[in-house]
């Protein structure tokens, strides 16, 4: 049973048990334009909620991606190194960035659900 929540920084988190998969939203991917490179965190790295965890690059810009929730990185989407286009094609599916073991479940529940996030992006 998984649940997906969103941040106002345009990251999504899908939680299954205590395993969180994180990526950037469709809205963000559209704003960025063609993604050419993604810098992902190393396995084992401990990240705090709100800290910089990854960098996503388009041709003309580099954007930081923040960890929506804190925890230990358990894996990263290595496919993105040869096919960064996955982030544009399927940002909320095959274009996921990294997974981590959630440290604090309350951090997840504070985030927006799909409806709230949709409302949020309307105003941007």
């Amino acid at each position, binding site marked *: 049973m998984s649940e997906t929540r969103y941040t106002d*920084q*345009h*990251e999504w988190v899908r939680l299954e048990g205590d395993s969180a998969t994180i990526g*950037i939203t469709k809205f*963000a991917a559209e*704003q*960025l*334009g*063609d993604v*050419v*490179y993604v810098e992902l965190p190393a396995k084992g790295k401990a990240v705090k909620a709100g800290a910089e965890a990854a960098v*996503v*690059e*388009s*041709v*003309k*810009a*580099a*954007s*930081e*991606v*923040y960890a929506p929730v804190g925890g230990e990185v358990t894996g990263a989407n290595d496919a993105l190194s040869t096919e*960064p*286009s996955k982030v544009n094609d399927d940002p909320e599916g095959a274009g996921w960035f990294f997974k981590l073991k959630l440290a604090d479940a309350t951090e997840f529940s504070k985030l927006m659900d799909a409806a709230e996030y949709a409302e949020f992006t309307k105003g941007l």
Partner: protein
Amino acid sequence: MSLNNQGRPTSAGYAGTGAIATISGDRGLDHEEPLIFELAHGAVGVDFPDVKVSDERLGGMRRKGVIGLPGISEPEAVRHYVRLSRMNYAIDAGLYPLGSCTMKHNPRLNEKMARLPGFGDLHPLAPTAATQGALALISELMKWLTTLTGMPAVAMSPKAGAHGELCGLLAIRAALQARGDGHRTRILVPESAHGTNPATAAFAGFTVDEVPAMPDGHVDADALEAKLGPDVAAIMLTNPNTCGLFEPRVKEMADAVHKAGGYFYCDGANFNAIAGKVRPGDLGIDAMHINLHKTFSTPHGGGGPGAGPVVLSERLAPFAPLPLLVADANGFRLVEHREEAPASAKPFGRMCAFHGQMGMFVRALSYMLSHGRDGVRQSSEDAVLSANYILASLKDVMSAPFGDGPCMHEALFDDSFLEGSGVTTLDFAKAMIDEGYHPMTMYFPLVVHGAMLIEPTESESRESLDCFIHVLRELALEAKAGKTERFDGAPRLAPRRRLDETLAARKPVLRWKPPPLREAAE
């Protein structure tokens, strides 16, 4: 994530081939040109005797394999590079309205002077007695730079503007450490600053604290002053700023940072607006780099070389890097070692090998001597006049966010006038290419949306300006009227259509590889 949406379209899109197909693939005077590696066939473009050498004194390090360099004859090489040159836009060919780049005319006298054997063929470590003319020239140039800026000293060795910024910040670091203030590591930088400013600050070991811009395009002086504190090392300002405006509260900000124990670094990229009219020294700066390849006409050369000497205040002068130029009864000499420096000198180190970009010094002095103080002043006035003429002529059809008042040597527009048209700043710029113009600086400064920064310089005639204005006017009107044909898929008349920058970044191919290797890699 920090949603940095400068990610505007970078793939090429589809475009049908509209041109007439020729047998050769060339079109009139436009020739397609392969790479030298594809032309190579074992010919040689030089004549040297085939001398045999023994391994005896090579320490066993003789090359074992071939290098793989292509060989072509001189006529083929000349044709190759001539054909390549014809695919380039250039100042000599047309107006280059690049804001903050100062694309003025590059006088050919400068080229002739730089090639005098006494300058061009002079070894940097030749004995001092053999280089007195060169040292005298550097001394003369230093006098021009310090006099024009109203500053007491100048460091000549930085090789470009960004290198000069680094020099200035390292001098500031050394000065702070010398007085026990090494804990001051914060530098205030406007959000409108050129990328080299924060990059240099980080390079020199400082942290960057951004100061916002005000709605009128000036830096928020109140915010800047509020950010001052005992941990501030310096402020870095560009004046005139990157929006093309003179900072009216610059003296106040200088006084404030000095009072707070910090220094004022000024980015001199826009010196062409005020050279010969305003002395940055009178505004309270501590250090400023001067881009000789902008203000003083040394050629841009397709991206370099530049030169970025840095003028320094009394408080920073002692920390100027090696080498130092000294004049005494015997003539000029260079102090190249800390131990030989006068007691008051505490150089922070060395920016590069040898003495600086002598080739650019000769060109810059040639420019200065030709212009004289009155000509330098005239250049600034004409540059400012031309930019304002463009602003006044276009602000009714394009949108100038700070167009209510005069600008300095460059005029800033944004993309509000294109709203709803489907045409972006990028499309607008690419359409200019079809009209025979190099686009203006786009998407910089970051403080306005879809920025278009236009700097005509003093080298354009009124007719040239009028033609430029007319084209921009018509393009703007067409875009606003929804007539987007000129913009769709532009440029269409340049040697290349829009290029796929996404592909270039996703699958970097940074060198030619011989076919078998290429296949193996795929």
